[in-house]
């Protein structure tokens, strides 16, 4: 891709990041959610290390998923409202690439901080250090899938007024496999079983989402603009 084609994409990425920095809450909300869940679980079910250790991968993953869902609200909404979204179709802009950039910046803003602070959450739930790397790897592969699927759902619900509930209904069935394979990988590792199949399945899901979802998202956005 030559420089002149990449320039609009870089411009969009930079402006997204700048705006996110201006409203610090966008990155903080998922973190606050993650740590609320992680801090409350021991209070709810008792602080026994064995029990916590067993549920740690699942709990962290569920918290990461739900916190990602919280952040999906503004993905296209503000652009839709202020008229910058319709500008994506003016001229010969590569809309699918713009969609990918938007999803990428959303992932950087909301998912990356969660992944970076996962070691802290893992410590709080007594996850063995040996499994931490694998958990973070599954998050690294899995959260982009969440961003992609969430982006599609938020594009589909753009025109509806109370899209939040619908958003959840749309996303959960699609994201369940990611949760199953991710936590399955960590559990298998803790039981001394091979983790490769789980990871390969996750990567396959990511490739599938990366290749199909931006197309569908661009089409859904267009429908809402019309």
């Amino acid at each position: 891709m030559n420089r002149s084609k990449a320039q609009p994409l870089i411009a969009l990425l930079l402006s997204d990041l700048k705006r996110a920095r201006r409203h610090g809450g966008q990155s903080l909300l998922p973190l606050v959610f993650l740590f609320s869940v992680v801090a409350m679980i021991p209070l709810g079910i008792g602080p026994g290390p064995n029990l916590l250790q067993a549920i740690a991968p699942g709990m962290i993953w569920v918290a990461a998923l739900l916190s990602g869902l919280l952040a999906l609200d503004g993905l296209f909404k503000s652009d839709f409202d202020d008229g910058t979204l319709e500008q994506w179709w003016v001229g010969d802009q590569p809309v699918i690439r713009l969609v990918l950039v938007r999803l990428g910046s959303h992932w950087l803003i909301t998912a990356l901080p969660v992944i970076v602070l996962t070691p802290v959450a893992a410590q709080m739930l007594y996850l063995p250090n040996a499994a931490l790397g694998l958990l973070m790897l599954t998050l690294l592969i899995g959260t982009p899938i969440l961003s992609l699927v969430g982006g599609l759902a938020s594009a589909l619900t753009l025109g509806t007024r109370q899209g939040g509930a619908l958003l959840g209904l749309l996303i959960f069935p699609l994201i369940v496999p990611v949760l199953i394979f991710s936590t399955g990988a960590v559990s298998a590792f803790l039981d001394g079983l091979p983790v490769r199949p789980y990871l390969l399945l996750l990567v396959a899901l990511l490739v599938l989402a990366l290749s199909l979802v931006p197309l569908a998202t661009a089409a859904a956005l267009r429908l809402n603009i019309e």
Partner: protein
Amino acid sequence: MKPYLTANQVSFHRHSEAVFQPIDLELYPATICVVTGANGSGKTTLLRTLAGVLRASEGELTRDASIAFIGHRAGVKDDLSCIENLVFMQRFYPKQANRHPLTPHQALKQAGLGPYIRRLAGHLSAGQRRRLALAKLLVAPADVWLLDEPYTSLDTHACQWVDELLDGHLSDQGAAIVTAHQRQPSLARTLHRLEVVAGARAA
């Protein structure tokens, strides 16, 4: 000379009903076309179709030029400052080799927003926001300007500024299509007119 924009029996259907009667149009360099029509006759829809935001449901539409479209919604980010908005626009729209962009600073001065360079667009008045939106035409110049009600919420002075912009653009081999309700562009040039008539139901 080739037309920048050619529409041949173009119409747009919403819920399988034509929004406006099919339109024929050839837009040549250095011409301006004013779109008129009653409320709800589909002026905005026509402009959005010509811009490529909507896909023409019928007819043939060829664009042989770079397009700048300014719609009802200003396309300005409230949480960016004036200058940041223009810097973004300059980078976002592909550069045109035949056009010479102003720097964001120069454009803001021209738009009369010089004192508000660092003010967030969300804190501007409606008229100032419109000026900021129009300043896009200076930092990201295009051959064809599609302006939907550019005079809305502008004061007399700013309206004259828009006329000057249009005049300069036309002298520069540019072309423009403008929808105008109350104020019409007042230029010492021929204004071509295009009457839009609401579709199916009215017919």
